[in-house]
């Protein structure tokens, strides 16, 4: 190749790019135009033109830089994935309204906090986080995969040893707020493992065991943190990431066996969880409070109708956690089956739209990231709804965006932000390389 870098070609390409406001597409557009111009130049060089003439002709043939740039700018303007964003906003508003009415009906009297005002604050924080992450290039996250993995491990170890335990679960106390780190750790591990396992070579024995270890260590910690729910969510996410990263059927079946082999004995270590499970299998045996909760929930749900009972719920039939895990039952009772049907349909559309983003995204890391997130969202929605209906064991799984809770809302908003960031950059296939 006669010419590798030519000042005039570079200037032309820079003129084109200067018109394109979305800077992250510049590298790929530069590469594409460069290849084209070099092809024309080589063509002329082979016809015995001098290099200067060839470059002149090539640039003339490309057309005015400003025009090409302006047209490209129009195409690469930001078009957020509005369906996913508006469905989440709808969920958030539904949650806020529910908090408002729960408080107004006097159903929430146990602790002196204003759940509506708190939710409003969390919502504002969530919107800010989604916006910031949307603007942030998600590909930068990949560079920090190992750091995110290690720091989540370290925080978990720290919290398990020194953290304040509430209901057997350690919290990360940051002064103003305390974060349920065990509950949200599957999200952090999902982000980090998406980067780490992206190109994992599962069929080499050494790599295979390393991969296995990377997946198992977080599970051990989450289990020590006392959350069966989080460990199940983590396991499912891990398996999804393994499948997407190209681990064969045998590999992930082995993993599934290994991981569930760890969860099952853990269930027996925590007797109250076991009791919950027994009650779920055999509802007659009301050994622990979960049986009571299940009864209250079915009372609530069965007394609803297609249009709901309005704001008539009395505090004497209210199960604990009505504003958190059991908000679904409150909404069924209050707003009725039709409204809840619409809500469930929207949840399905939400998941389908996310899968669509995973399908069209060019970058493999993006596909891994979204697959993990989809798994987390699907389990949250399914488990929460099924347990409210009495078809799944009672656990601490929230209804995403709707249940009361800062950690829940903010971290779901963060996943939403990353997904929006991927959608914005879906046509960029290049991976960022750390310096």
């Amino acid at each position, binding site marked *: *190749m006669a010419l590798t870098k030519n000042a005039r070609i570079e200037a032309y390409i820079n003129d*084109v790019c200067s018109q394109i406001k979305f800077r992250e597409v510049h590298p*790929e*557009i530069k*590469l*594409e*135009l460069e*290849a*084209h111009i*070099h*092809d*024309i130049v080589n063509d002329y060089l082979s016809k015995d033109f001098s290099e200067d003439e060839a470059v002149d002709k090539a640039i003339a*043939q*490309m*057309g*005015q*830089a400003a*025009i*090409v740039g302006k*047209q*490209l700018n*129009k*195409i*690469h303007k930001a078009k957020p994935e509005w369906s996913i964003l508006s469905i989440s906003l709808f969920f958030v508003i539904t949650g806020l309204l529910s908090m408002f009415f729960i408080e107004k009906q006097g159903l929430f009297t146990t602790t002196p906090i204003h759940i509506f005002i708190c939710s409003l604050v969390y919502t504002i924080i969530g919107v800010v986080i989604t916006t910031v992450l949307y603007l942030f290039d998600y590909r930068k996250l990949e560079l920090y995969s190992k750091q995110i993995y290690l720091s989540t491990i370290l925080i978990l170890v720290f919290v398990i040893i020194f953290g304040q335990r509430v209901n057997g679960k350690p919290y990360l106390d940051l002064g103003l707020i305390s974060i349920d780190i065990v509950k949200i750790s599957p999200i952090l591990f999902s982000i980090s493992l998406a980067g780490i396992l992206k190109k994992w070579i599962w069929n080499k024995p050494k790599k295979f065991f390393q991969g296995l270890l990377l997946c198992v260590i977080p599970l051990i910690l989450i289990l020590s943190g006392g959350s069966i729910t989080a460990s199940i969510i983590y396991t499912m996410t891990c398996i999804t990431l393994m499948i997407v990263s190209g681990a064969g059927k045998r590999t992930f079946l082995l993993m599934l066996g290994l991981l569930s082999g760890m969860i099952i004995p853990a269930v027996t270590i925590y007797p109250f969880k076991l009791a919950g499970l027994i009650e779920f299998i055999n509802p007659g045996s009301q050994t622990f409070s979960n049986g009571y909760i299940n009864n209250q929930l079915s009372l609530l749900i069965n007394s609803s109708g297609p249009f709901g009972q309005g704001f008539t719920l009395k505090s004497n039939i209210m199960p604990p956690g009505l504003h958190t895990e059991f908000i679904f039952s409150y909404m069924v009772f209050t707003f009725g089956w039709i409204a809840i049907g619409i809500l469930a349909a929207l949840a399905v559309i939400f998941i389908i739209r996310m899968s669509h983003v995973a399908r*069209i995204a*060019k970058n493999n890391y993006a596909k891994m990231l979204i697959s993990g997130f989809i798994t987390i969202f699907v389990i949250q929605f399914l488990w929460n709804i099924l347990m409210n209906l009495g078809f799944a064991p009672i656990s601490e799984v929230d209804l995403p965006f709707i249940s009361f809770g800062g950690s829940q809302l903010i971290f779901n908003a963060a996943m939403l932000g990353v997904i929006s960031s991927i959608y914005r950059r879906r*046509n960029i*296939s290049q991976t960022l390389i750390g310096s």
Partner: protein
Amino acid sequence: MKVNKELLKGSTVILVLSLLNREPMYGYKMIKEIEKKSNGVFMFKEGTLYPILHSLEADGMIESYWLGNEGSRQRKYYRITNKGSNCLKERELEWVTFRSAVDKILTGEAYAWL
């Protein structure tokens, strides 16, 4: 002979789609093919091909991928998607209808002049 710019504008999308319907290509190759097949009738500023390609990709009609090693020349190839080939079929039908209608009127006029 040079054709009217407006006429060219309306047909570039169908040209690009039908080229890619045969095989995946990169931009420069597309220009060469169009030039060759049209005997030089279709000549346009080559840079303006890319806005067309990028917008077709944004609409999901075509998709792109990179070939070539990093460091050496990398080329961005485009291939047609299912949505794109469906669109092409519609556009082809549209074009045939349009062309025969224009032909009828033009040849009718030609007879009238005779």
